[in-house]
């Protein structure tokens, strides 16, 4: 039944037009095409990144270190693992990008460089596709939609490395900071730690997702709640335990069982809800609308002026690529 808008008189005779089927049509189309989501996890080794991602999507999607340790890469590497998940007929092409070797060395200067250039390379690739004369209708989207940054649970504050990396990442991608291995901290310690991290983030003007400036008014109260809880203190686990007949995901120690899904134990449930159930589309959209557009603007405006501004070391390469691709 079409709704009567202001100034529009309801149609007499109640003929059903069928505008509301638009929603259904988009849904069917999306189902056929499937969604793409690219997640980047950044953090030192041993913080439980792979476990967390596996827990999040309830499937082995991340590159997991086996029992025998792989040799530590001498510089930060960027490795991707793609998988296709399906739930309720909805297909999700999920790509998890991992960064082994980040922050693990004695000298960690510029360990963020490979990550930043990877993100910008993805934007560059999309831009290239977009600018082709003969371009695909549906450009494969490899841009990073969300970056989860793992903070080690020291209990003090953000380390200098964290601050450096976050300052660089928040301008090019949606960053969600997360306190890893939250079962190290008691509840009071956790609250104090989060306070200090929030203070540090605002001191250094690091803008984390959800961004305050660009949100719709409808989302504001929800985002406010999320922001109060930032950074999420999570625990990841893929082992099931049985307690009182119930099967639970968690970590069992001699003194108790840490439940992953229990909201009083950690923020995993909140994080999962935000990341997947409520804000996933927003993440994808904001990457396309905001971060990609920023990148595009910067890239194209430097191209129009005869001088080449070296924004980052990759610029000249991309310039050549762009020129070559113009057929």
């Amino acid at each position, binding site marked *: 039944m079409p709704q009567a808008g202001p100034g529009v008189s309801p149609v007499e005779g109640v003929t059903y037009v069928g505008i509301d089927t638009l929603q259904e049509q988009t849904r069917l189309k999306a189902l056929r095409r499937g969604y793409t989501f690219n997640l980047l996890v950044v953090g030192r080794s041993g913080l439980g990144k792979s476990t967390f991602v596996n827990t999040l999507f309830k499937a082995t999607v991340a590159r997991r270190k086996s*029992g025998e340790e792989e040799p530590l890469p001498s510089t930060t590497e960027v490795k991707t693992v793609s998988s296709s998940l399906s739930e309720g007929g909805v297909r999700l092409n999920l790509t998890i990008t991992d960064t082994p070797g980040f922050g693990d060395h004695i000298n*960690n200067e510029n360990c963020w460089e490979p990550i930043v250039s990877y993100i910008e390379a993805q934007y560059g690739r999309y831009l290239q596709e977009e600018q082709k004369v003969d371009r695909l209708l549906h450009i494969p989207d490899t841009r990073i939609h969300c970056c989860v940054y793992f903070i*080690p649970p020291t209990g003090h504050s953000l380390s200098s490395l964290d601050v450096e990396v976050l300052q660089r990442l928040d301008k090019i991608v949606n960053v969600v900071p997360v306190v890893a291995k939250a079962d190290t901290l008691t509840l009071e310690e956790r609250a104090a730690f989060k306070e200090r991290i929030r203070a540090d983030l605002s001191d250094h003007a690091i803008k984390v997702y959800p961004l305050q400036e660009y949100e719709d008014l409808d989302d504001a109260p929800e985002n406010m709640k999320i922001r109060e809880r930032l950074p999420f203190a999570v625990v990841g686990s893929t082992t099931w335990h049985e307690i009182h007949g119930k099967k639970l995901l968690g970590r069992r*120690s001699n003194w108790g069982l840490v439940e992953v899904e229990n909201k009083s134990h950690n923020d995993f449930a909140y994080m999962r809800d935000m990341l997947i159930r409520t804000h996933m589309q927003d993440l994808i959209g904001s990457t396309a609308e905001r971060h990609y557009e920023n990148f595009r603007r910067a890239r194209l405006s430097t191209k129009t002026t005869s001088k080449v501004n070296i924004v980052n070391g990759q610029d000249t390469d991309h310039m050549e690529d762009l020129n070559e691709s113009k057929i």
Partner: protein
Amino acid sequence: MFRSQKTLQSKREMFFKTDGGSGGGGSGGGGGGTPLAAPTTAPPAPPVTAPSTAPPPPPANTTGPASTPASVASIKEQLLTTKERKEHKDEENKENKLVKELVKERRPREVDGYVGFANLPNQVYRKAVKRGFEFSLMVVGESGLGKSTLINSMFLSDIYSNDHPGPSHRVKKTVQVETTKVLLKENGVNLMLTVVDTPGFGDAVDNSDCWQPITDYVETKYEEYLNCESRVNRTQISDSRVHCCLYFIAPSGHGLKPLDVEFMRRLHDKVNIIPVIAKADTLTPDECQHLKKQVLNEIAQHKIKIYEFPDEEGDAAGSKMKQRVPFAVVGSNTTVEVEGKKVRGRKYPWGIVEVENIEHCDFIPLRNMMIRTHMQDLKDVTNNVHYENYRCRKLAGVGGADGKIKVSNKNPLAQMEEEKKEHTNRMKKMETEMEQVFEMKVKEKMSKLTELEADLQKRNESMRKKLEADLSELDEERERFEHERKAWEAANGITVEELRRKSLESISRETSSLASSSTTSGGSQKSSPKFSRTYSLPRHKFKQNEQCNQQ
């Protein structure tokens, strides 16, 4: 072989036993024969052990009371067979050395009645208690691993309290070494505890050489002790050397980080390192075991020598505890209530971790082994092994002869060779560096000079152009002037030459009139400038004439 050894031993016992008064160092030598390997590695075992290993005297024992060294030697010869002579020679040399050291040692004899030297331990004890003990403990690790909390838990007092907060609460930019001295008393025994903390370790983005301040500190302490020891007037030396270093490993589950390996490799031959896995309540028991194995593997792989708790016989519990190395610990500043008792622990929503529960973490084994059983051993190893190594290195490096015979890894010659090589390498490096710098400077100078040259040339050009422009202008003007003159001459029908003649004539007329009337001062003044003016500026006069003519 075995039988011959046994007979050898029994024969040895046999003739040593009869030594009532010979200075043969008998039982000491006999006892020293068997555990000869041991004294070089373990701290010098007190002579008490020697007689305990000597088996009871064999029945046939009648090599008379021949107690002079000469007869002893002859008996020795008789006892030896040709086969065993060689081994015996080696052992003999070792024995001789031990003999020199344990000269007055003899097989203990029970005394009848009570003399009273059984009281000696008590005297030693009382003296030591009066003097008090010193212990210096260093804690190293990244910030946030719970070092201060562990220290508080271990010594059951708030060494780092809210009044003077520990280093974790202060932001550090560079690695520093801070000491805190606390005097603890328990049952009348005083312990002066020095806690050395290293805030800022491993916290920066670039952590190269962050172990340098720590190494320097340790060596400084050794140096101080060495100086105290070498003084002519020696008073009671206060031992501030670092006796034990607790290295905190983050419970990441992946073993040692490159920083950990580097640090331990640099300090394992300077100080006793006890690796400790921090915040162990992060790990489940399986993960804990896995991590411990991983850490031990990596330590063995990198050939790091950590402190090994010595085995004591009859201490089964101790050896079980020893298997838990590296210790996975949890510390706590707060007490929580568990089943009515107040214990130190951490309260989580899913349970309570008790610090002093051996099922939960290895805090108890660590504390017991470090304080209750092996504190003295730690100090001894520091004194005898690490300090001696340092002393060797220091004194051999200076070039002087070393007084003590010490089992060290290199002899001084090899060390000198290495130093020479190092020196030449360094020289080469410096040379290349200087060459580079020189080249750079030359390039700079060249570029500057070329710039100046270009500059000068430009200026030259511009000046020349200006001059040419001026010249051409002047030429133009002169032409114009010529034109005018010609025009004027043509117009007036008279040339410049004639005008000049005329003016000269008028001047000569004036001068003659002046000569006649020299008294008129005003006129002379007026006329002399006129005179000079006409000579210097004929044109001026010419102009005046022109004006006159026109008028």
